[in-house]
């Protein structure tokens, strides 16, 4: 007995968080048992993320200042854009060319570039003026945690391309969520580790790998957030009131 194919419009609606919770859960279950569906969802998700990141691209530079409708100063601004683009490109090239220090363990092999990615973003955050966009299901959840999305862009971690979402909260809390494609991989349960001030969480869901990184964050809060994000990556739809309430209750001050 053959199973009817899932219409593309339904898959796209799933990726866009436009299905009802019941529909999304049913499709997630189908994807968990059908690699073809999972692969199509993965591709759509990456296309969506890549299109969304166009606004952060070099050529989609900052818009003209809102308070300056006059066009007289447009050439100097364009020159600034060009300089900024060159600087950003140079930083990107430097990041690729600078050799990475060797990790001690196999786990660190996969994780350290992401920790470095988090630290690099965190160090440069004060100079960042992003107006990022993340999937509604993710941004809504993180808002409930008290963290605000401040950065969303593809980046390179080691040899992998990843989607980097970064959040900040009160008391200088800073948290990164990295999402990367892991086609054909089975789902993997949440794994949380603490090394001094560093907190990391990893899991795999529906052909994607997720790594969450924070420093100096209350461990209970970090774990609560990781568990909630894992849940939302399972359904890719806005979460229920109970999860939101638990996240609000788990808010703790960052210790930095």
């Amino acid at each position, binding site marked *: 007995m053959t199973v009817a*194919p899932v*219409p*593309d*419009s339904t*898959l*796209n*609606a799933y990726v*866009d968080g*436009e299905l009802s919770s019941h529909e999304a859960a049913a499709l997630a279950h189908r994807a968990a048992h059908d*690699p*073809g569906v999972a*692969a*199509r969802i*993965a*591709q*759509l998700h*990456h*296309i*969506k*993320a*890549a*299109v*969304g*990141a*166009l*606004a952060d*691209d070099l*050529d*989609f*530079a*900052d*818009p*003209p200042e*809102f308070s300056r*409708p006059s*066009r007289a100063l*447009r050439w100097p601004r*364009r*020159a600034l*854009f*060009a300089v900024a*683009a060159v600087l950003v490109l140079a930083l990107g090239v430097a990041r690729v060319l600078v050799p990475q220090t060797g990790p001690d363990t196999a786990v660190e092999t996969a994780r350290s570039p992401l920790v470095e990615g988090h630290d690099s973003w965190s160090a440069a955050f004060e100079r960042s003026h*992003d*107006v990022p*966009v993340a999937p*509604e299901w993710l941004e809504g959840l993180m808002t409930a945690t008290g963290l605000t999305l401040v950065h969303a862009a*593809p980046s390179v971690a080691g040899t*992998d*391309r990843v989607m980097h979402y970064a959040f900040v909260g009160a008391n200088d809390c800073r948290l990164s969520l990295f999402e990367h*494609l892991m*086609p*054909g991989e089975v789902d993997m349960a949440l794994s949380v580790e603490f090394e001094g001030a560093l907190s990391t969480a990893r899991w795999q869901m529906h*052909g994607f790998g997720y790594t969450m990184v924070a420093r100096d964050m209350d461990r209970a809060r970090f774990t609560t957030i990781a568990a909630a994000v894992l849940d939302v990556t399972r359904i890719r739809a806005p979460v229920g009131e109970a999860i939101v309430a638990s996240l609000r209750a788990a808010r703790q001050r960052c210790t930095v």
Partner: protein
Amino acid sequence: MFKDQHHEWLRGFRRNLFGYACALTTDTARAEDLYQDALVRAMAARSVPAEQISFRVWMFRLLRNLWIDSLRARKRRIALMDEQAGVDCDDRFTTGGEERVVNQMAVRQAFMQLSKDHRDVLALVDIGGFSYDEAATLLDVPRGTIMSRVSRARSALACQLAEGPVVGLPLTTRRRAL
């Protein structure tokens, strides 16, 4: 009338609005013109939505209407008629099982080769962050139309990506000329 509150709201999505202008025009200089024209028009409007979400939809619609006006003025109707471009390889996309890590540069170039309608709906949903309902309101079409347009647009984009090398963009060319 435009108030301080509107300025504040606009700061929250101005980059998205400019990204939408870039997506429509495929040209940064024209996008700047379009963006600024939209702001000027908005600030001169007698009636501005007093609710945040309505205001956001109103701003995107205003910019889009200005762009359509400019297309008409330039008699570039052909750009409005290419809805079907690139959708004839849906089968390859929907049945192809291999995974590909999407290259951001390739996506940008492929996106700019999409038809106007495909760029329009993807920019609203993926860059503007609008829900299907909001996009339907903005474009004055049923929600189901948005659903099918998004699906076809992403299929067309996947086709562009699968077809390999794409030509340079006006955006890139312009910036190199600076």
